[in-house]
């Protein structure tokens, strides 16, 4: 089970990123929980200065942009491998 967080105060790009991420997760058929993090103190805890940010299993994988679905797929599969290895 992956814990995916979308960091952002609710701007258009953050919503877009959330939608793309959900789509990728669904297509891959991965067990994952996608959560939005909208409070600034919580966002800043990840040391991210430009939103939207994407966090998978507490690791920041991208910030300040919307990665392509292909990139997110790579992030997700990497995270699954990392989780399997540990």
């Amino acid at each position, binding site marked *: 089970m992956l814990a995916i967080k979308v960091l952002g105060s609710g701007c258009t790009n953050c919503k877009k990123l959330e939608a793309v991420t959900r789509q990728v997760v669904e297509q891959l058929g991965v067990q994952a929980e996608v959560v939005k993090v909208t409070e600034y103190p919580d966002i*800043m*805890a*990840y*040391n991210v*200065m430009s939103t939207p940010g994407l966090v998978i299993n507490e690791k920041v994988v991208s910030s300040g942009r919307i990665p392509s679905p292909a990139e997110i797929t790579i992030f997700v599969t990497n995270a699954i491998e990392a989780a399997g290895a540990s």
Partner: protein
Amino acid sequence: MTTLPQPIPSANKRLFATLVIVVLVWLAAYNLIQPLADWLSYSALGLSRESHLGESLAFFLYDVPKILLLLSGMVFAISIVRTFFSPERTRALLGGKREGVGNVFAALLGIVTPFCSCSAVPLFIGFVESGIPLGVTFSFLIAAPTINEVAIILLFGLFGWKVAGLYVASGLVVAIVAGFIIGRLKMERYVADFVWKIHRSGDVVEEKLTWPDRIERAWESVKEIVGKVWLYVVIGIAVGAGIHGYVPEDALASILGAQAWWSVPVAVLIGIPLYSNAAGIVPIVGTLIEKGASVDTSLAFMMSVIGLSLPEAVILKRVLKMPLLVTFFAVIAVAIMLTGYIFNWIL
């Protein structure tokens, strides 16, 4: 962040070849616009060169493709440069800089660091919490949105490098001076309390970008920015073209060109509630200049429209208490007015 230039693998050669072809096509198209626009309006449609309609149409047909081409080309170039900068990097560069020097650096970095007003708050927190002085942080936060790349490109395309340079220079002066003043006012206690309590964990994300990555990112931002502003550009130029053809030269000089002491402050005050993007306002303001409105008043108006906006105030309200928020806006407004007067005096 950045990596050293790497030897180009053969798979990337095709990408670079494509890029070269695109640049050549771009140059050819750019040089063909004027003859095409003239031919369409005067030969194909048979309008007279002296007629209002002919003049307006030729102006429109020339300016729209020219500006859109310039916009795509230059946004691409700027975006490539921006892939070498990130807020994290800027923060590292600003760390340890004193006020004064720090303000100058912050304003300059504000031009090249990728910035979106929706990230203003995380950026503010990230800077302040890492120990960058409040005034220096504000210099950055003023320069980043005010010295807007679309505005620079449009000013350059429509009025040449002098007006564009003047705009960048005034933006820098405003950001440096306003940030410095806010820093001197010692208003740290008016920053929302939670900002000082944030506990950050984890390392900064570092990205290793290859040249194909950079090109792809730059292309993405061309699509995003041009996609967002092209309609405003077309409408703005259409209004501008109408004025160009129908309003006599220097007709506005008596109203907007007047060196009345109140023309700059009035322009700035009108500009604050007006929130428009650079793309729409520049062609109109530019045509006003051409018809005799004074350059400094017009630039002050433009900076106030682009740099001081109510939506931004709403966003910043989350981290700034009222006294600081009001001071922030007041200081920028005054700084813009002063720049207006200085240019009034120089020009």
